[in-house]
């Protein structure tokens, strides 16, 4: 039985592939990964990709918060981390009276959790001239009580002209504690004004959370006509956030997971396509030329076969560099060896076929015979091998990233796991930091393994016989 007799037409391959359930599952997984990639490219701001490793970008988010949906069970509801900004969440009104202009940004918060927020922050950004505006913050509670928690003038402007000023008022601010001291009488028990996040959200009769709708109003008093509010915001610190929670560095893991998909697909496909094509041509040349060429090329192949991959990858990325393109290159160096062996053995069979001999007798060049008569016969097998090689490439990159040797400028799943391991996420029970990235690595690898195995079962003569 010769390999050529086994070569199927494209139509037959597609028809047989449609019958393979596991292959179709693989295709389905791959499609959803591609949709994820398109979604992250279209909907998630590119800034989050570039700023992945800059702590300032993520300052508004909570540290190591669990995903929001962990609240859906029967247990006590943990407060969700809320980041409210003027553009989306505030209702803005302004009025003016006797030369004083009042701008009110009011935020409505539905607080139905079983414990207090861990802290809160009030953000504002104002442009003003010579006379300092005044900021007043009030909280209207569900029980009808209204607390004025902050009242202060902004710092005097440096230049007389238009001065932009942004700042945050933290819940630990002394001014808030002082203001709250006036309201201790509201409570039937002793309340501590130095913990405003508790006092503001506490029931007045007994020591528990007062659930309901709170309105937080930031009121700005302006004394000059050109002064204006640029932005404002309220952050209520919580222990759950987003679809996938956050890590120790406050980064939204959902974004990291999303961006990891295109990176993994890029690395997996580039490495496997490059490595398999190199191996294909290398093996076919060795098999077709035979004799000394074959012997020499296969000795080199043997040497590569015996090199320990990971230690050398480590050395290479420590010394040469860690950019994603370099890593892709390193992985190619170790990836082509197996394909070269397979394609050589098939080329050995193909070169004795009559049509190849005929081409040779007609005086066609070796280059022509290899690329026009032998390699096309091997293409179906090549596609199967490319799919099979993807998981190894993805695992290789993940392993390097996990060792802390990945591209530091790009979020990858391996890197997220590296940071999780460094922070001891497993011992601390931060499962949302560990499970999704690893699962994504496994699922991506699995998709290609399923497609590859299904294709291989169709096109590889050896597995067909099984």
């Amino acid at each position: 039985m010769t390999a050529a007799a086994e070569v199927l037409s494209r139509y037959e391959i597609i028809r047989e592939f449609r019958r393979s359930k596991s292959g179709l599952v693989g295709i389905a997984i791959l499609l959803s990964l591609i949709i994820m990639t398109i979604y992250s490219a279209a909907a998630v701001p590119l800034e989050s990709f570039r700023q992945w490793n800059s702590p300032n970008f993520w300052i508004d988010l909570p540290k190591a918060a669990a995903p929001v949906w962990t609240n859906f069970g029967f247990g006590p509801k943990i407060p969700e981390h809320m980041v409210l900004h003027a553009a989306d969440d505030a209702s803005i009104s302004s009025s003016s009276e006797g030369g004083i202009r009042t701008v009110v940004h009011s935020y409505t918060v539905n607080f139905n959790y079983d414990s207090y927020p861990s802290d809160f922050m009030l953000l504002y950004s104002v442009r003003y001239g010579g006379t300092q505006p005044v900021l007043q913050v009030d909280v209207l509670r569900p029980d009808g009580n209204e607390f004025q928690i902050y009242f202060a003038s902004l710092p005097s402007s440096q230049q007389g002209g238009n001065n932009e000023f942004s700042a945050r008022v933290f819940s630990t601010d002394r001014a808030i504690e002082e203001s709250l001291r006036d309201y201790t009488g509201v409570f039937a028990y002793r309340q501590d004004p130095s913990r405003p996040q508790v006092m503001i959200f506490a029931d007045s009769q007994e020591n528990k959370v007062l659930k309901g709708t709170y309105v937080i109003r930031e009121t700005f008093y302006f004394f000059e006509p050109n002064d204006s509010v640029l932005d404002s915001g309220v952050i209520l610190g919580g222990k759950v956030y987003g679809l996938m929670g956050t890590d120790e560095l406050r980064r939204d893991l959902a974004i990291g997971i999303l961006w990891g998909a295109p990176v993994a697909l890029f690395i997996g496909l580039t490495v496997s396509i490059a490595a398999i094509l190199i191996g294909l041509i290398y093996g076919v040349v060795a098999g077709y030329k035979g004799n000394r060429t074959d012997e020499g090329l296969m000795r080199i192949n043997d040497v590569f076969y015996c090199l320990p991959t990971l230690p050398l990858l480590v050395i290479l990325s420590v010394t040469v560099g860690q950019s994603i393109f370099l890593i892709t290159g390193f992985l190619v160096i170790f990836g082509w060896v197996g394909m070269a062996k397979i394609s050589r053995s098939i080329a050995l069979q193909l070169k004795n076929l009559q049509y190849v001999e005929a081409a040779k007798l007609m005086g066609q060049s070796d280059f022509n015979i290899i690329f026009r008569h032998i390699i096309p016969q091997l293409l179906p097998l090549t596609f199967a091998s490319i799919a099979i090689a993807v998981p190894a490439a993805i695992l290789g990159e993940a392993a390097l990233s996990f060792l802390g040797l990945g591209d530091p400028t790009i979020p990858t799943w391996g890197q997220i796991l590296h940071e999780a391991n460094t922070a001891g996420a497993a011992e601390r029970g931060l499962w949302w930091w560990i499970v999704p990235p690893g699962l994504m690595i496994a699922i991506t690898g699995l998709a290609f393994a399923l497609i590859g195995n299904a294709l291989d079962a169709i096109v590889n003569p050896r597995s067909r016989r099984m």
Partner: protein
Amino acid sequence: MGGFSRFLLKRSINMVIVLFATLVLTVFLLGSTMDKILVDAIRVNVVEEVNYNRDLRFSTAAERQHYIDEHTDLQVKTLGLDEPWYSPKRFTNTVLKVMILDLGKSNYFTSDSGSSNVRDIILERVPNTVLLFTTSTLIITVIGLYLGAFVANRSGSLWDRLNSAFAVFSSSFPTWWVGMLMIFAFAFAYHIFPARSTPLTPPSDPAYALDLLYHMLLPLITIVIVGFWSWAYIVRYFVVGVLSEDYIAAKRAAGIPEKRIVYSHALKNAALPIVTVIALSLAGSFGGAIIVEAVFDWPGMGKLYYDAIGALDIPIIIGLTYVSTVIFVITVFLTDIVYAYFDPRVKVA
């Protein structure tokens, strides 16, 4: 010369080439960094000598500095470090030094006995790595053989399909990630095993060995449950092949019980290629050991490697790369030989 001895010769030459190629590549990539480290070490020695030698007195700081520079240069010249690392003499010298693990002192690590000699540090870690990975290999092999034979006999059954599914599934999982999940499950959620696998009892304590074994359990279980599925799958492939042979049909005809045919006759005939394939591939997975040890904090070479990368301790990195290459290459070599010895087709190809 016979076919086998020619094969042996070819393989041995290949092994030497691989070892040498790895060494040259390592030295090529890290040569200049190593030189810098060596010169720094010499300077530190000279400064120490100046500080502790009471006979040496200098009237000015400049004079002291001059003395230090002069003596450092002198030693650098005696050692031949003034030549660039790629000069033939230096290069051979470095390669030879790496071969006998004469890599000087580590900057950050010490062995249990307090030595900061690279060779001591590395050799102290080797037994732990070997212990963990040979134990897990043995267990995987045994489970793989019996599970493989079991499903081979029920080819196409639910068990068989389940095993194939798990084989594909488990080979897509990074073992180290499963390790993190195991730590979460059995160290955080249920306090059954310690999260960190480095025992707290000092090595001199008689209870150390027992403690080490207890700490080894979680990494061991992890490696085994990720590993055995795909091995059972491979065993199944071989056993199914053997079961279709004529002599098995003859045994069946002779009325030998099916159980005995599968587990005794078929398995025995399929075992050898299987064992060599397993050994070969586990040698390949040795690189993965780096990460598994790092995740579990198992005090082996992999953990040391991980720490050395974090601290960029070049002498340790070079030494470990070399040692793991040697282990890997020798395993590949031995499996090749054993395999060839029993399977004559390999020699011809």
